[in-house]
C-alpha cells in the first residue's frame, strides 16, 4: 500500500555516504568533488528545468547558470546534508528568474511592437513523436494553470522531479505539513484531471 514508488528520485545524501563525502570535499573547495556531484545531478537538474520551460536551448543555458552559481556558492553551504535541496532551490530560483525576465520582455515587445520578424524555432523541437510531446506539455501546462502556485510547485517537485516530502519542504522553505496540504489539494485535482490522463504512457516493466 501507499507510494512505495517515486521515493526521492534516487540519491539522498543522508542515505548515500559516498555522495555526502563528495559534498564535504566540494564545500572544502575540491573542484573534482564538485564535478562528481555535477555528473550526478546534471541530467536531473536539466530535466527539472526543461519540464518548467519546455525549451531545450534555454534549459541548457539555465542549467549552465545553475551549476556555475552552485560552484561559486558551495563553500558557504553550512550543512552538507542539504546539498540536494540547496541545489534544487538554486535551480528553482534560476528558472523563476528566467520566466520573470521572459515575461517582462514579452510585455516590453507588446508595447514597442518590436516583435522578431525572423522565424522562431519551436522550443519543443522536432522528432517522430513531436505532436504527442507537444500535446503532452500543453495539457500539463493547462493542468498546472488550474493549481495555485504553491500547489503547482509542490506537485512538480514531488511527482515530476521525484523529491521526497522532506526535500520538497527544504527546497520551498516550508514545513512538511504545509507541503502535504498543498500536495493533497494538487493530487485531488490531478485525480479529476481527464484531458491529461489519456496522454500518459504506460510504463514498460
Amino acid at each position, binding site marked *: 500500500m501507499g507510494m512505495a514508488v517515486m521515493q526521492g528520485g534516487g540519491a539522498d545524501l543522508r542515505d548515500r555516504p559516498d555522495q555526502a563525502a563528495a559534498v564535504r570535499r566540494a564545500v572544502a573547495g575540491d573542484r573534482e568533488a564538485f564535478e562528481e556531484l555535477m555528473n550526478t545531478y546534471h541530467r536531473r537538474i536539466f530535466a527539472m528545468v526543461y519540464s*518548467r520551460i519546455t525549451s531545450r536551448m534555454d534549459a541548457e543555458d539555465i542549467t549552465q547558470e545553475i551549476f556555475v552559481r552552485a560552484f561559486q556558492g558551495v563553500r558557504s553551504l553550512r550543512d552538507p546534508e542539504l546539498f540536494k535541496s540547496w541545489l534544487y532551490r538554486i535551480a528553482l530560483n534560476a528558472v523563476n528568474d528566467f520566466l520573470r525576465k521572459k515575461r517582462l520582455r514579452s510585455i516590453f515587445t507588446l508595447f514597442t511592437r518590436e516583435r522578431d520578424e525572423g522565424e522562431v524555432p519551436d522550443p519543443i523541437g522536432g522528432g517522430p513523436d513531436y505532436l504527442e510531446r507537444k500535446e503532452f506539455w500543453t495539457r500539463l501546462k493547462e493542468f498546472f494553470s488550474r493549481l495555485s502556485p504553491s500547489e503547482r510547485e509542490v506537485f512538480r517537485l514531488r511527482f515530476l522531479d521525484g523529491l521526497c516530502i522532506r526535500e520538497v519542504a527544504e527546497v520551498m522553505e516550508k514545513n512538511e505539513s504545509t507541503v502535504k496540504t498543498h500536495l493533497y489539494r494538487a493530487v485531488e485535482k490531478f485525480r479529476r484531471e481527464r484531458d491529461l490522463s489519456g496522454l500518459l504512457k504506460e510504463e514498460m516493466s
Partner: protein
Amino acid sequence: MSDDKKTRCDIGQVIRCVVDENDLDGEQRRHLDECPVCREELRRLEGGLRRLEHTAAEYTPGPVRRPALPVEESAQPHRPAFGWRLAWGTAFSLALVMLIAVWALFRGGLSPESYQDVAREMAEDEMLLAEVIVLEENPLPDAYREISPEETSGIDEEIFDFIVPVEGWSTDQESGTKEV
C-alpha cells in the same frame, strides 16, 4: 467494507495515503488494505502519477552540453574586492611615476606645469589600475553577475516581483544560494 463510520470509504484517505501513508492511523490503513473499492482507487491514482512522471521523462530530451565551470576555484565566501593585487598595483604605479620623475630631473629639471602633469598622470594611472583590478575581481560577464546571489536580492528584486510576478513560485522566496 466495514459499516464503522471511521472506516467507511473515503477518497480523502486514499489521497492522504498517496501524499504520505504514514499519516493514516491503523484503522484507516486496515480499511485501505481490505476494501476493494479503495484499493482500486489507490491503484488508479498511484498509477496515474507514476505514468505522469514516466511520460514527462520520456518527453524530456537529454542535455547536450556539460556545464562548464569557471576556471578559477570556487569562490571564497566573501573575498575582499581590493586585496593584495590592488596594493601591488598601487606600489607599481607609484614606482613607475617616481622613475619618470627622477628621469625628468636628470634631464634638466621640471617646470611647475610638468609637476602638475606628472601628478595628474599619476592619479589617472591609479584610477585606471583600480578599474582593471575591479574587472579582474569580477571576471564573469554581466549575465552571470546578474544571477549571483548578491545581485538578485534586495529592493529591486521585490519591485520586479511586484511588476512581473512569476507564475510557478510564490514571491516570498529568498535567494537560491541562501545558506542552509
